[in-house]
């Protein structure tokens, strides 16, 4: 799909440069050149040249963002001169209210941690990838290693979560039993979830 192996140098980015822009826009951590080369199926040298070309053009055009190579990978950053408005924007944001879906997912993680995405999805009956991402972005949930059997990423709640709920530790989470329907016996313990 990427026809031009060489990055354009003009105002319009080449196919390769545009593809790099698309990928880096959604990357949530710096992406290494060889990773990009692999996804795009082009030579790493071409990727490097295109990235440097893009970074230079953003700077030259005085855009609000820049492309920087950090920690072995490339990532979009806001340009330093706009830090004051970005700070103002971030600070001014209203307190974030979680959606019902996010609250339910958070509740499942809190009581079943460490827990993988698949198990959370199985409990809630719908895919929860997006919501888990939101909770991670908001600092309420964090990764907690991998499942020794499946290798799936496990998640747990953060200390920020405890702080927001006004608890000193996880052991202060209220017991679930009083909130569960009476007729549930141990055998039916909903905690026993078959991973999907």
């Amino acid at each position, binding site marked *: 799909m990427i026809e031009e192996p060489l990055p354009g140098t003009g105002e319009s980015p080449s196919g390769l440069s545009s593809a790099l822009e698309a990928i880096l826009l959604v990357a949530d951590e710096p992406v290494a050149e060889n990773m990009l080369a692999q996804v795009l199926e082009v030579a790493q040298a071409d990727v490097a040249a295109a990235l440097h070309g893009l970074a230079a053009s953003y700077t030259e055009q005085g855009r609000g963002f820049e492309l920087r190579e950090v920690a072995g990978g490339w990532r979009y950053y806001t340009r330093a001169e706009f830090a004051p408005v970005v700070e103002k924007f971030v600070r001014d944001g209203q307190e974030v209210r979680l959606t019902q879906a996010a609250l*339910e*997912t958070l*509740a499942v993680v809190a009581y079943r941690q460490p827990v993988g995405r698949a198990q959370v999805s199985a409990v809630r009956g719908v895919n929860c990838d997006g919501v888990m991402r939101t909770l991670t972005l908001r600092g309420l949930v964090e990764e907690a290693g991998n499942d020794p059997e499946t290798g799936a990423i496990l998640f747990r709640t953060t200390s920020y979560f405890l702080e927001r*709920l*006004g*608890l000193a530790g996880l052991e202060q989470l209220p017991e679930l039993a009083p909130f569960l329907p009476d007729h549930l016996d141990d055998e039916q313990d909903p905690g026993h979830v078959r991973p999907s």
Partner: protein
Amino acid sequence: MTEGSGDPARGSAAPGFEVHLDVFEGPFDLLLGLISRHKLDITEIALSAVTDEFISYIGALAGRWDLDQASYFLVVAATLLDLKAARLLPSGEVDDEEDLALLEARDLLFARLLQYRAYKQAAAILAAQMTDQGRRFPRRVPMEPGFADLLPEVLLGLTADQFAAIAAAALAPRAVPVVSTAHLHVPRTTVREQAGILTRLLRAAGRASFGELSADCEDTYEVVARFLAVLDLYRDKCVSFEQETPLGELYITWVAPEGASPDLAAGPRPAGIEPGQPGGADYDRQR
């Protein structure tokens, strides 16, 4: 007459299902379109034929058909059935209020069908738009390290107990969705069985009222079965009955010649569905 070529532009719910009737041949959706535009009289459509075709269509797909298509068919077939029932009612001169109400009901059914079609088409547009939008990925990445500390607080707005209640609700096992069979009756008895009981009672008593004969019935179902058994015995000339006044007490007299054994009352127990199906327990044991 439409050639039986599937038009892919038509509703995605039933792309492959076509009907072949005397008056119409073509995609199911087109049939609906014609009916709704009054181009085809609903009374000309044999719904049972459409249903038969749909069933054989599903059969031919051998498990590859999808639930969407089947449920779409059911929704529309139910509406068609309503429509047809209304259509078959006399629709001549409107001379009393009841007729007027019938006509109005028919118009409402048309409106309902068309309204459903409108939403179905809207749903197709929404689906296409979602697919299109699904090709664009939003930027959704963690805050740049330099600004992360400035992020506003997340407002949980819950006490720990309220949070636990949400967890309990989310973690409670959901009832496995099942198709309700509450409206289906497993016959707990059969007319033959009731005829046997009646024969025994009447041979002993000679004559009795139906009230007496059905006094031991456990429920309405059994009373009905016993009454049907009376009719069967009457047909077999085993009993006669008399009723002085309409809705009055019904008296039944045993009239069969001595020693005669009515067909129904004799013989082995019927092979109808009986309580405690054999086989179920075996199956469980095998597991």
